[in-house]
């Protein structure tokens, strides 16, 4: 089976700044590849290349075996790679269903928006993911941070994404909300999507991840299958092992 995404020795420089260098990993269908690293480690640069926002200038980037270089996020989307950004997932002042269909609006045969269809599909797609909203006409801004991420994930799943890139989906969330989001990550994975989960919290990554790529200062610090590493070692690799015990409580409950 060919991997959905395969990057090999990929690199990117901004002028004289080497943002990313010599990084390799794969994303398979039905698996979660976690990208871990502290701020400035190159996580964002890597996903921006995968999402078509930036272009790599070293190495190779293959989608389903075919070497590729995206010129826009739209092109990445057309190849089935959907990205959910931490702060940019949704437009807060717009209603849930308008957000859900943004960029792929349903129209009637006269070219007008099919608002009824939009509302119905949104409600159905969200409830398929286990998100039960009272009213899809309410502005997304009235939802909680976790619910917003979930709307964005449900949108990507509905529009047939093969690969889902999640940029720090749990960063701004409380413990319980983070757990909810990870549940939907697992659900997307079980539906056969390849998931790239970016996070700086190993306790969020470990329960759902199949593969862990650790980045530090733009380089790969290590790449492990889940069988090769336990959470203690993962955390130690990431943070240097100092304040681990303080963090350890944070994710014990999310394994479900």
């Amino acid at each position: 089976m060919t991997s959905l995404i395969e990057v090999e020795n990929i690199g990117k420089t901004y002028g004289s700044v080497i943002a990313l260098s010599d990084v390799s990993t794969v994303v398979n269908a039905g698996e979660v590849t976690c990208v871990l690293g502290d701020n400035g480690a190159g996580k964002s640069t890597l996903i921006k290349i995968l999402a078509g926002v930036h272009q790599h200038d070293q190495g190779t980037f293959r989608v389903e075996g075919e070497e590729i270089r995206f010129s826009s996020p739209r092109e990445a989307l057309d190849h089935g790679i959907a990205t959910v950004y931490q702060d940019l997932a949704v437009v807060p002042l717009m209603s849930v269903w308008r957000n859900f269909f943004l960029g792929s609006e349903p129209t009637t045969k006269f070219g007008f928006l099919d608002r009824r269809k939009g509302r119905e599909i949104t409600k159905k797609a969200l409830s398929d993911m286990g998100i039960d909203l009272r009213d899809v006409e309410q502005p997304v801004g009235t939802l909680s941070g976790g619910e917003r991420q979930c709307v964005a994930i449900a949108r990507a799943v509905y529009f047939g994404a093969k690969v889902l890139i999640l940029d720090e989906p749990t960063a701004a969330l409380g413990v319980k909300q983070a757990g909810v989001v990870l549940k939907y990550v697992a659900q997307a994975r079980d539906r056969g999507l390849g998931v790239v989960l970016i996070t700086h919290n190993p306790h969020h990554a470990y329960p759902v991840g199949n593969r862990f790529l650790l980045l530090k200062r733009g380089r790969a610090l290590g790449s492990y299958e889940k069988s090769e590493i336990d959470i203690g070692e993962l955390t130690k690799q990431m943070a240097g092992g100092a304040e681990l015990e303080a963090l350890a409580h944070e994710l014990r409950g999310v394994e479900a």
Partner: protein
Amino acid sequence: MTVTAKAPPAADERLSKPRLLDQLVVRPEIGAMLGALLVFLFFSVVTEQFLSLGGAATWLDDASMLGIMAVAVALLMIGGEFDLSAGVMTASTALVTALLATQLGLNVWLALLVSLAFALAVGALNGWLVMRTGLPSFIVTLGSFLALQGLNLGVTRLVTGSVQVSGMRETVGYESAGFLFASTFQIGGQSFYVSIIWWVLFTVIASTVLVRTKFGNWIFAIGGAAQSSRAVGVPVVRSKILLFMTTAFAAWLVGSINILRYASVQANQGIGLEFQYIIAAVIGGCLLTGGFGSAVGAAIGALIFGMARQGIVYAGWNSDWFQLFLGVMLLAAVLVNNMLRRRAERVKR
């Protein structure tokens, strides 16, 4: 299975009937509607001519010229941008038409077409500059505002030796073009300017596009969060440029109405009007930060303008009071809008 009363489809049992206030609060134009009603009632009581057909014809005409622009500016503002050159553009387009028709002897229809092409080009340039440089549209269009102002005066003086172009009445096609842009129609023995129809038509089209089409959805999105919109595949640059061109088109429409009605144009016309457009749009519920607003609201904002400006004349007051009214109105509108936005954006963590 027994046939009992069927539950209404798609209604959620957790939703009690939405409170009227909550329903109204999501309509951006509601504040403007109340304001318009108040202003209307006030001047209807205080003055005699205001409620007459002749009075209505006057304030509707005043509102229509402002309203066409306010609606276009509202679309642009919902899309997250400003256009300070909009006011001067109404003069530029009229000048281009007038100079071509009177100096070069071009048919008025042809002159109008050239002037439309000119307007769309300036609009596209504004949009392209804003998107290309990433600078705030406020500063970019301030530049094009000053540049156009200079061009208007400079070119007019160069060609005619004065700061006015007149003599449109003798040009070829003035009558037929005038019929489309500057004629009147009768209701109850009172003649109304055709600009009122243009205003209503433009508002209906703009509002339909905004609420019922894909492009309308994109306007809200690029004004609310341009980066997120780009990430889900909305063509942000193209959409914003189109909005700048829409504003320029509206300026062409108003400029054409002006030149064909008065048959002459002053080169310094239109300066300062750009703020009136923005004020009307804000009174109509547009947020200065983009992403929220209404085309109908902007039209109503312009209506408030027209009614107040003419009402003050009918009441026999000094027109100085209009500025005071405007200031108070604007502040009230911004406060209301701000409250509405916070309601809509209220985050639950």
